[in-house]
């Protein structure tokens, strides 16, 4: 198939992407060209005038972040399905509407569950 569909539909996307990348390159390039270059160990520290940083740049996170991330993932998936659903539930059969309610209901149970289990508590 000829790439018409592509060129017509995604010209704007491609332009936006190119502008984004080029813009970023210009900004980084300009800052590289313009900035004074006198590097010392002190100046390379993340916070030049604060307290000295801890020995490692990363510290161990608590487990509850992980569960928050999982919750985020699950409702992200739900949100993705909401897009096509929002377009069709008015015009399609009734069942479509209730299907999404069921889907959300099942996931909502997950929220109640984690709430009740104290996962959402922050102490």
């Amino acid at each position: 198939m000829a790439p018409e569909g592509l060129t017509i539909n995604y010209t704007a996307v491609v332009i936006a992407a190119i502008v984004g990348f080029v813009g970023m390159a210009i900004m980084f390039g300009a800052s590289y060209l313009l900035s004074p270059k006198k590097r010392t160990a002190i100046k390379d520290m993340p916070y030049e005038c604060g307290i000295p940083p801890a020995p490692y740049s990363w510290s161990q996170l608590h487990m509850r972040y992980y569960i928050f991330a999982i919750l985020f993932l699950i409702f992200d998936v739900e949100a993705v399905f909401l897009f096509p659903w929002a377009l069709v539930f008015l015009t399609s059969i009734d069942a479509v509407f209730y299907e999404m309610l069921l889907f959300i209901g099942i996931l909502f149970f997950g929220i109640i569950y984690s709430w009740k289990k104290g996962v959402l508590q922050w102490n």
Partner: protein
Amino acid sequence: MSLSLVVFYLLGAVCLGGAVGVVVSRNVVHSALLLLVSLMGVAGLYLLLLAEFLALVQVLIYGGAITIIVLFVIMLTRVQEFRAMKDNPQWPLAVVAALAMFVLLAAAMIKGAPSETTRQSVSFEELGSSLFTQWAVPFEVASLVLLVALIGAIVIAREGGEE
């Protein structure tokens, strides 16, 4: 060579480059970020195939949520464990196995795949009405899978810890 073929090779290079980077990088955080590059390349491939919904899913779920989770999981581990990270001594074997798999799949595709196909765009409306009517059962089961994943994560993560 048509424009879409050029774009395809570019995106393919992004995917493969990212994937090779994931494996080769000595720093797990870099690996996770390179994985993002690879996943975004796949999203581009979906767009090229006119599968817009899949591209959206790829960016939102893989680019957004999955990469975040991978980074969180890396941060859950202790930094000391990574200082001693070594190559798996079996890696030459893995390379051979992966190459064999690649040759097999590629040969089968070259011999078996139809030489020419046309790309077809599926609109969100068509996709929605098919997903929520014909494919309702897998759709609902997917929510149960997510729920079990959530409950399982809570059960396993908190086992032994609190309480």
